[in-house]
């Protein structure tokens, strides 16, 4: 590809239009221009590819973040308070508070709308019980440790259960 301008310059010089020295200066100028163009093109493609990879990583992080039901790791208030006393933070941020004579106090986190209460059994690092609101009341969804991190439950049992086609209701 780089030979073409040199051939052209040689032809111009041979035809006697320009002295040979000037012809080589023109050739050098053209070659430098082509090299700069190629470098720019490659740099642009590389940066686009990197950007795509970063976007994919960000997407993964967003998906994982939405799937985890614990506090938002980007929440600065939370991160600061986590180092101090998580439950005090939840109490301060609560928009609703309820009392059960049997189980004690419950606080609804104004941000996640989940209800938090102290875990009475306090077994193996579980400090809090976390509940979601239903029409009937509060339903347990997970246990959490002292920093409010979810203790993850692996669901066992009827996963992958066969459902007969006749039992399916098709919605059109």
């Amino acid at each position, binding site marked *: 590809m780089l030979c073409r301008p040199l051939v052209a310059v040689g032809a111009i010089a041979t035809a006697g239009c320009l002295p040979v020295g000037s012809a080589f200066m023109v050739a050098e100028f053209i070659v430098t221009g082509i090299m700069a163009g190629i470098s720019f093109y490659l740099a642009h493609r590389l940066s686009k590819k990197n950007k795509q990879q970063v976007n994919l990583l960000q997407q993964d992080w967003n998906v994982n973040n939405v799937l985890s039901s614990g506090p938002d790791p980007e929440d600065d208030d939370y991160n600061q308070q986590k180092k101090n006393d998580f439950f005090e933070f939840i*109490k301060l941020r*609560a928009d*609703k*508070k*309820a*009392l*059960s*004579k*049997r*189980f*004690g*106090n*419950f*606080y609804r986190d104004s941000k996640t709308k989940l209800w938090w*209460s*102290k*875990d*009475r*059994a*306090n*077994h*193996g*690092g579980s400090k809090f*019980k976390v*509940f979601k609101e*239903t029409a*009937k*009341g*509060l*339903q*347990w969804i997970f*246990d959490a*440790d002292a920093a409010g991190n979810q*203790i*993850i*439950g*692996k*669901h*066992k*049992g*009827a996963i992958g259960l066969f459902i007969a086609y006749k039992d399916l209701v098709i919605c059109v």
Partner: protein
Amino acid sequence: MCINMLTIHDIDDLNIILDSSFLITGDRARQNEEIAENMWVISINEEDREKILPNQLVDFLFVLINKRIDQMSKGGTIYPVVFYMWFDEMAAQLRLNMISDFGKQLPFGCNIEIIDSPEPIIKDFLASDYHQGISWDELSEMDDVVDEDDNLLFVLKVFVARIA
């Protein structure tokens, strides 16, 4: 930390626990791993609880304990192990665990009453009013944060069986 959760519809659903893997290390530093790996959290739907009788659950429990003894003797486990079960009333769940026994207290942060029969715990579980959650009727709204008394009055019943 990751625990095993199971919602049962009939007594046979518990069989999955019998063949599940478990971890006994004999190492005090790894007790949290044992707690997480060996913990089973069992819940039941309101409409299914009458299908299960307390004695069926008691029978299952002893089958499970015997199976674990058998598995450990075949696997050459030489560490003493403690199996324990309690009813987590807030979550309406029967919880089982098994850890290396170092002769220390069980890993609870509340007062416990050790009982030698699982039946009272199983009856509490099946008779619980909280299988569908804690009813709004049980909760009264508070305007201000009221300090809670520490857990001093609460006593948790725990069935304990020392095995191996």
